[in-house]
């Protein structure tokens, strides 16, 4: 069964450092998403991406965040200067072309900022 894959599974970084989280969405999907989940809290929407541009973003997705689809398969989330409060599980997700289709999530990348 096709799945969304994410790397790394766990990353520890120092405060102020840049982090890039990588995702390979399901191959025939055209909509891509990043969500995050702080430990013990709900899953929060960060950004959606379609046709090589951001289609929606939340208040959390400020200037320190950026997304990119550098090639035909990868979808990345960059955090430019990490803060302690960025420590969370980051989930990549994708869905088929039509809006409203089911979103499939990856296993997540656990980011710890120290």
């Amino acid at each position: 069964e096709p799945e969304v894959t994410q790397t790394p599974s766990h990353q520890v970084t120092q405060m102020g450092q840049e982090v890039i989280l990588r995702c390979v969405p399901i191959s025939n999907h055209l909509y891509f998403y990043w969500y995050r989940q702080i430990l013990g809290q709900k899953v929060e929407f960060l950004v959606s991406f379609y046709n090589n541009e951001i289609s929606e973003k939340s208040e959390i997705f400020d200037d320190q965040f950026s997304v990119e689809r550098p090639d035909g398969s990868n979808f990345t989330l960059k955090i430019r200067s990490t803060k302690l409060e960025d420590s969370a599980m980051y989930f990549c997700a994708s869905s088929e072309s039509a809006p409203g289709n089911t979103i499939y999530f990856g296993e997540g990348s656990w980011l710890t900022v120290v």
Partner: protein
Amino acid sequence: GESVGLHLPTLSVQEGDNSIINCAYSNSASDYFIWYKQESGKGPQFIIDIRSNMDKRQGQRVTVLLNKTVKHLSLQIAATQPGDSAVYFCAENIHPGGSYIPTFGRGTSLIVHP
């Protein structure tokens, strides 16, 4: 404020019992709802969805009920098994700016005792 919420943060049941997990939503414009299951350390996994033109949908051992009058959603799991132990999230697709963005509730932890 939070537009999707859950009535019970933890639900404990005996193996073989039926489980009912409830969810309230406040956005009357929401037209698509999804239940996700999240096991420890994993990403949300799609269980079942329902569109607002339906009031009931059945899957394998699961049933979702939608009551638009009171903005209430429930997930029923028949013959609950230990493998069903997880956190269950309801998510609603809203239309900020025309895009579908699943917005998650806080989650209910289902504990199944053998």
